[in-house]
């Protein structure tokens, strides 16, 4: 049964230094507030798993929280590069990070294998790609046809963190819209944190592709309205595309980045304070 707790407590209790942390959300429902809280709590040596690192991991990498990155596409969607990610890979700043790089299909298969309790998953992939030589992929032969396919190891994060639209008071989680790989990432993990826009008496299905995670599959639920900003939560917020564009400028320079992180994240007490600051900044 999920406990309903504060985000600070959830991150404090469930994200030890050195953990393998998956924070999923495919453009939609990215759990930014939880990432910021990890930065506030100065988490260290995390191995960060995520199909699309996005700005959330650019921030964690730039703040030196990450030892490793397990991923499949590390760009700023619709804008360009993730400069903190690049700085870490190209120049080891603020520290070198170890990459474990896959294709999207490979990452999805790894999470699905984890959710299925299997040690590996199979896909027709990687053939002819140089990725084969640089990542955890093995060839496997079909015992019936002799075809050679790719095997990828199950991905089982210590903790998976996602953002969703709703939870009820028992901790059942409801979300809708683009659901990415979140369900698999939660089911594959040893523990999970779900930040939600609202806690309600009864879950309501109000959009396409309604997805439900029963309370007994989740460890902690934390109410964090607007917790996906600058990503979005369908039915609650829209994507802050301007922020994604501005991020290019903020993150390009190490000092500008550090100053921004200090002002908006480290020195804000919580996500509500962050949203206030962002809102004042945008209107100012």
């Amino acid at each position: 049964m999920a406990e309903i707790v504060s985000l600070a407590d959830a991150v404090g209790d469930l994200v030890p230094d050195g953990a393998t942390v998956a924070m999923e959300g495919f453009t939609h429902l990215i759990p930014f507030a939880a990432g910021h809280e990890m930065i506030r709590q100065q988490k260290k040596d995390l191995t960060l798993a995520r199909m699309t690192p996005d700005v959330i991991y650019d921030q964690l990498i730039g703040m030196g929280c990450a030892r490793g990155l397990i991923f499949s596409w590390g760009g700023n969607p619709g804008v360009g590069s993730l400069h903190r990610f690049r700085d870490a890979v190209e120049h080891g700043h603020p520290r070198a990070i170890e990459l474990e790089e896959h294709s999207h299909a490979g990452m999805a298969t790894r999470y699905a294998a984890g959710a299925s309790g299997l040690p590996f998953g199979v896909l027709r992939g990687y053939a002819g790609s140089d990725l084969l030589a640089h990542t955890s992929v093995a060839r496997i032969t079909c015992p019936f046809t002799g075809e050679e396919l790719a095997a990828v190891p199950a991905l089982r994060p210590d903790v998976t963190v996602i953002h969703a639209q709703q939870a009820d008071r028992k901790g059942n989680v409801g979300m809708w819209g683009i659901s990415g790989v979140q369900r698999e990432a939660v089911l594959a993990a040893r523990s999970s944190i779900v930040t939600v826009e609202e806690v309600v008496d009864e879950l309501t299905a109000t959009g396409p592709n309604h997805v439900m995670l029963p309370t007994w599959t989740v460890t902690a639920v934390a109410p964090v309205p607007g917790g996906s900003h600058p990503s979005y939560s369908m039915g609650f917020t829209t994507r802050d595309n301007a922020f994604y564009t501005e991020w290019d400028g903020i993150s390009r320079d190490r000092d500008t980045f550090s100053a921004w992180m200090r002002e908006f994240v480290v020195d804000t007490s919580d996500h509500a304070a962050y949203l206030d600051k962002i809102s004042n900044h945008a209107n100012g």
Partner: protein
Amino acid sequence: MAETGPDQATFAPDEMMTVTAARGLRNGQVCFVGIGLPSEAANLARLSHAPDVVLIYESGTIGTRPEILPLSIGDGELAEMADLVVSVPEVFSYWLQGGRIDVGFLSAAQIDRYGNLNSTVIGSYDHPDVRLPGAGGAPEIASSAGEVIVMLRQNSRSFVESVDFVTSVGFGRDGEGRIGNVGAGPSVVITDLGVLRPDAVSHELTLVAIHPGVSVDDAVTATGWDLLVSDPLDVTEPPTSAELATLRDLQARTREAHARREASAIDH
């Protein structure tokens, strides 16, 4: 730019590229689309000659009909206008790997003469000069889509003798590398200068058409290998005024909508 007639405005090279790519899609085809140029071309096709083209984005949005172009692969618009939305594992397993995609659209930072694509690194993998975003959905689109349409701007940085990293296989470094892949591989490469197709036997990309106003020399100069040129060489039909109007209308609608949403994102 080229003047194409009294009814048609001048058009930009990127517009020629997008229109050409859009024409490559047939009505009713099922198309796996990436953000950016491919998304623009696929939606232009849907809004012009191919109203029943089925667009699938890797965010799991199947049969989507966005009224504006998505800025990210997971815009809400894509989910709201979709026939169905599935999980990301499912879009790659039951839909792409399941053999349901006729056409995959890909772009990249580098391409070589055998249509191999690099979107991973410039320089070495362990010590890159430029770390690019990486593979995303591309390797399995390259593997499993019935055919692949490649779109990228043609210049000596992108059209290289040897890609620094094969992210997504075309025909392999030696032109014989499709073992283990079920799709036919790249059928056409559409650039801002012209159109290239792989030779049926050698699989080497061959310039088969140039866009109006472009010279063969422009294309050869922009290519980092000794470019094969088909003889005779076609010249692409310039965009019709209808195609240009539809494309520009789509772009204008998109700009307006994104500006409106940006203004409201914080206050939500």
